[in-house]
């Protein structure tokens, strides 16, 4: 494989956790609830996957518990923002702070031990024959394929099913949706929780695919990059694939550059994903100056049934 093919493969691999977390965020935001707890949900998912991996050695249990952990934070977020109509920004921040603490509290006693769990790569030997494109897809992790399937499922769900139509209605105009007989609160609860489970899965994938060890703040801001990716992807799952891979590309590029040129201090290369996020969002803002951003119309506004708009 040539240099670019390997670079793209590592970009896809690095983009996968971002992609899954972004999908989770898209689900919540399509229902009109801002999820700023993604970073926290990923962290808790990662630590649960790690602990279950160390204690049981079962990959399946790791994934299940990571998703349950994310989902319970999702329930908390929906209770705060849907039922109590609290400020969604602060609710998400609180969840992230809480789970940053909780994850390092839970992970501490297991520190150092390496769980014997991982997700295998899926090889397609016959694809190797096709130059470049075939080579890229010949040897990808099963989790990457799972994330692609997830993208397709969510895309079909959001844009081609009646439930997806209801979901979009809830996010754009909950009062209209309510008048049409759609259970607004139930949709919000369900979608936020489902999205949060995906964020937990994204965290677990960091442990299962990348580094089978735990250190505090393992996600290093990936959850926040996912928040930016939602905007960059215009709340669309298919676009999210390309956006996540672009970010994975910058992360991978940093690693590669470090190998080829050790005169640049690694600290500056590590800054790349963060600076890219800001620059990309500035580009999106500039591009969107004359057209709608694609944001759900009622994003962040709690729906109060008794209140006239």
């Amino acid at each position, binding site marked *: 494989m040539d240099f670019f093919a390997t670079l793209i493969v590592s970009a896809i691999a690095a983009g996968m956790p971002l992609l899954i977390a972004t999908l989770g965020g898209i689900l919540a935001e399509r229902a009109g609830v801002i999820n*700023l707890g993604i970073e*926290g949900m990923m962290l808790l998912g990662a630590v649960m996957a790690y602990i279950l991996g160390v204690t049981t050695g079962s990959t399946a249990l790791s994934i299940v518990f990571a998703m349950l952990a994310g989902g319970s934070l999702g329930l*908390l977020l929906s*209770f*705060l923002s849907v*039922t*109590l*109509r*609290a*400020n969604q*920004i*602060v*609710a998400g*921040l*609180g*969840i*992230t*702070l*809480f*789970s*940053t*603490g*909780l994850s*390092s*509290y*839970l992970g*501490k006693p297991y520190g150092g031990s390496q769980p014997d769990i991982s997700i295998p790569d899926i090889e397609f030997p016959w694809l190797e024959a096709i130059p470049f494109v075939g080579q890229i897809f010949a040897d990808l992790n099963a989790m990457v394929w799972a994330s692609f399937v997830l993208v397709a499922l969510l895309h079909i769900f959001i844009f081609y099913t009646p439930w997806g139509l209801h979901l979009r209605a809830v996010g754009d105009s909950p009062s209209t949706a309510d008048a049409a007989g759609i259970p607004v609160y139930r949709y919000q609860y369900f979608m936020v929780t489902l999205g949060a489970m995906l964020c937990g899965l994204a965290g677990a994938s960091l442990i299962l695919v990348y580094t089978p060890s735990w250190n*505090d703040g393992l996600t*290093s*801001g990936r959850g*926040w*990059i996912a*928040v*930016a990716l939602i*905007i960059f992807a215009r709340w669309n799952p298919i676009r999210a694939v390309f956006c996540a891979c672009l970010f994975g590309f910058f992360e991978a590029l940093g690693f590669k550059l470090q190998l080829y040129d050790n005169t640049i*201090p690694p*600290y*500056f290369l*590590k*800054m790349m994903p*963060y*600076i890219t*996020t*800001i620059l990309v*969002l*500035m580009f*999106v*803002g*500039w591009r*969107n*100056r004359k057209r709608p951003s694609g944001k759900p119309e009622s994003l962040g506004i709690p729906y109060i049934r008794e209140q006239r708009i």
Partner: protein
Amino acid sequence: MDKHLRIPGTQFRIRFFKDTSATNTPWWIAIASVICAFIFSGVFIALNGNDPFLVYGKMLGGAFGSSYGFGETLVKAIPLLLCGLGVSIAYKIAIWNIGAEGQLVMGAIAATAVTIYFPGLGQLSSLSLMVLFGFAAGAFWGLLTAIPRVYFQVNELITSLMLNYVALLLLDYVVFDPWKDPKGYNFPGSPMFTSAQELPVFGDSRLHYGILIALAAVCIYAALVKYSNWGYKLRLLAANPNAARYAGIAVNRQIIIVMLVSGGLAGLAGMAEVSGVAHRLMYGLSPGYGYTAIIVAWLAKLNPWGLIVSSVLCGGVIVGGYSVQLIGLPASMSMIIQGAILFFLIGGEALKAYRFAIVRLPSNLQESG
């Protein structure tokens, strides 16, 4: 739904009522949410096989039990007060600056730059230059958040958080590479400051004059908000951004000013931390002051005077977190409690219409004796 509860043996009763037009949050929600947060976190501590009462006892004893502990709590409260003031100014006009951590680190780096590039200055000139540089660097970092927000409609939450990571990596770079103390046995930190570059301390405690800077900042801000033209604009923007815009207030300019001030205050906190406590720039300088500042600000309901109380409380939670390390628990315990405080606080907002008041019984109903 007026309900009355007579306090037996006195002439007073408690009146419970619902005030649906209430816009401000009653005082008891802050206290109740702190208590609920401790109970909630206690459940997790208990689930993990530790005794929550023992843990909380240790935390309380560590933070407020001795004069040394309380001194440490106050030392931690200084950066929290400065950062908390900074973010609460921004939150007041709904600018979600969560980048106080990065702004603090930039202030610390800039203040240290003074000690490295102007080593021979006297105490007054060197300290004032450090204050100036610390503020300017924090303000610059705040500006980097404000510009994308104002000119490119970029959500300031994400920008400010990303800049935290950038600032922390920059800190790692300078302490591991160019500014590393050659005589420091490979410790990732700058050379120790000279006494002319250190903020003076009270007596032989560790409490430094940074507390005066912080309290002065609170007083100046409180006065400005109440009496100045700028404060009026700020209050108008806080109350109704649309009305403010129609009244001709340049909203974008206000956002930039607020982010400059907000970042600058956090930068001052960084300066105070290196010059008053660590006496050098070092790896892991801040145990997340910038994030705790968010809780400090909300707990105080963005009120500058309330910040003084909430910063001491949160400083106590941080110090308490260190003291539970003695019984083998991670200091991140304090982060659990902080996060829980935050979501109980905002969840509690839902109850803001519910009030209670202690009222005197009408004289015809008063019990004799």
